C-alpha cells in the first residue's frame, strides 16, 4: 500500500504545482493550461462524441495498415525463416528498404492516394511490416529442429508443414510481434494524422493546437496514452491466456 502511495506522490505533486502556478499566473496558462481545465476538456470530448469519432478514424487507419503489413510480414518472414538461401539473397534489398523512416513515405502516400484512410493505412502497413518480418523469421528459425524432422517423416508437403507445424510452433513469438506491431500501428497512425492527414486523433490534436486550446491538446494526449496503454494491456492478457501456460512451447532450448 505505501508503495502505491509513494509512487503516486510525484505525479500528484506535479499536478498540484502545475495547477497552482497556472492559477497564480506564474505559468503561461494560454500555452500549457492546467489539470482541472484539462480534465474538463477530457470529459467534454467524450460527451460531445468527438473523442469517439476521432478514435474510430484512427483505429480504422491503424487496423487497416496493421492487417496488411503484418500479414505480409508474417508470410515473408515464414518464407525467409524456412529458406536461409532466400533470406540471404534478399538481404541487400531488405536492408536498403528497412532504414527508410515510415514518415518519409507520408508525402509519397499523399501523392498517390490523397488525404484519407488509404494513405494512412499504407504508411502504417510499411511500419508494421518490418518488425513482423524480423520476428517471424527469427521465430521460424528457432523452431525445435526435431519438429521439422517429424514433419518430414510424416511426409508433409510444404503447405501442411507450414500450417500444421511451422506456424503453430512460431505462434507465441509471432503474437508478441503482433502486440508490438499493434502499438506501432497506433503511434504511426497518430503521427501521420499530426503531419498530414485531416482525420483521427492526431488531427484532433492539431485542430486543438491551432485553435489555441492547450486544455484540449493535453486532453487528447491523455486519451491517446490511455488508449495505447489499454490496447497493449488487453493484448497482453490475451497473450498470457493463450500462451501463458505453454511458454514458448516449440522453441529450441539448447
Amino acid at each position: 500500500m505505501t508503495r502505491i502511495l509513494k509512487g503516486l506522490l510525484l505525479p500528484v505533486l506535479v499536478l498540484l504545482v502545475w495547477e497552482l502556478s497556472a492559477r497564480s499566473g506564474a505559468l503561461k496558462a494560454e500555452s500549457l493550461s492546467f489539470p482541472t481545465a484539462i480534465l474538463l476538456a477530457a470529459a467534454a470530448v467524450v460527451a460531445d462524441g468527438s473523442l469517439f469519432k476521432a478514435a474510430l478514424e484512427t483505429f480504422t487507419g491503424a487496423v487497416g495498415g496493421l492487417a496488411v503489413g503484418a500479414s505480409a510480414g508474417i508470410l515473408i518472414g515464414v518464407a525467409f525463416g524456412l529458406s536461409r538461401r532466400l533470406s540471404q539473397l534478399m538481404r541487400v534489398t531488405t536492408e536498403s528498404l528497412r532504414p527508410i523512416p515510415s514518415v518519409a513515405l507520408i508525402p509519397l502516400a499523399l501523392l498517390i492516394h490523397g488525404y484519407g484512410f488509404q494513405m494512412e493505412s499504407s504508411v502504417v502497413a510499411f511500419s508494421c511490416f518490418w518488425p513482423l518480418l524480423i520476428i517471424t523469421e527469427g521465430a521460424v528459425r528457432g523452431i525445435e529442429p526435431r519438429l521439422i524432422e517429424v514433419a518430414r517423416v510424416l511426409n508433409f508437403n510444404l503447405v501442411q508443414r507450414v500450417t500444421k507445424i511451422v506456424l503453430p510452433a512460431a505462434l507465441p513469438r509471432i503474437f508478441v510481434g503482433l502486440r508490438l506491431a499493434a502499438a506501432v500501428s497506433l503511434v504511426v497512425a497518430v503521427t501521420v494524422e499530426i503531419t498530414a492527414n485531416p482525420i483521427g486523433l492526431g488531427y484532433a490534436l492539431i485542430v486543438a493546437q491551432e485553435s489555441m486550446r492547450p486544455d484540449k491538446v493535453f486532453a487528447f494526449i491523455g486519451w491517446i496514452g490511455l488508449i495505447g496503454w489499454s490496447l497493449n494491456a488487453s493484448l497482453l492478457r490475451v497473450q498470457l491466456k493463450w500462451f501463458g501456460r505453454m511458454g514458448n512451447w516449440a522453441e529450441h532450448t539448447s
Partner: protein
Amino acid sequence: MKLKNGPLMWLASLGILCLFVALWQGVSHLDLVSAVFFPAPTRSFESLWDQMRGTDFWFAFQQTLTRMAMGFVSASLVGIVLGALIGLSPRVRVYIEPSLELIRPLPASAMIPVFVLLFGLNDRMIVTAIAFSSLWPVLLNTVHGFKTVEPRLIEVARILRLSRLQTVWKIALPNAMPDIFAGLRLALTVSLILAVVTEMLAGVAGLGQNITLAARSFRSADLYAGIIVLGAVGYLTNILLERAENHLLRWRGH
C-alpha cells in the same frame, strides 16, 4: 551452384536488388505505370545527383542533421545520467518509476502540438521536440540497465570494499551498457522521425521540407530522391552507432 554465405552471396543479393530496380526501370519505360507516381529509377537518381551538386540540398541536409544531433546528444546525456541515478537507487525508484511507466505508452509525436504552443513553428520547437522524445527510450532503458545489475557482482564489490563510485564505474556501468545502447538505438530512430515530422509541420528548411514540397508540386523524381536520402541518413547513423556499440561491447557474442 552452391552459394556460401560470404562476399559471393552478398554480391548475388546486390544483384537481386539491381534486378528489381531494372524491372522497375523497364516497367516505367514501357509506360505500364504512372510516371507521376512511380518515376523511372534513372530519373530519381538523376534528381539525386543534380541536387547533390547544388548547395540547397546540402544546406537542408545540414539543417536536419544538426537538429537531429542536438536533440539526440542532449537527450542521451541527460537520459544516461538521470537513468543511472534513478536506476542505482531503489529508494528513488519507488517514487519515480510509476511516473515513468505512465509516460511510456505516449507516442512521441503526440507531444509536438504542445511544443508548437510553447515555442511556435521554429527551430527551437524542433530541437526541443526531438530532445524530449529521444529522452524517454534512453532514460527507461538506462534505468533498467542500472537496476538489473547482477547481485552477485554487487556482493563481490562489497567484499572488495570498492567505493560507491568504483562500484558504479567498474561494475554497474559496464553491466548497463547493453541496455543503454538499446535505448540509444531507439532514440536515434525516434530523433530521425521527429526531425522529419517537425520539419514538415514547421515548414523550415530541411530534408523533411524537401520531400513535402516535392510531393506538393508533383516532382516525384525529387520526392523519391529525398526518400532515398532519408533512408541513407537512417542507415548511416545506425551503422555509426552499431560500430560504437560493437567496439565498446566487444566482450559480447564471442
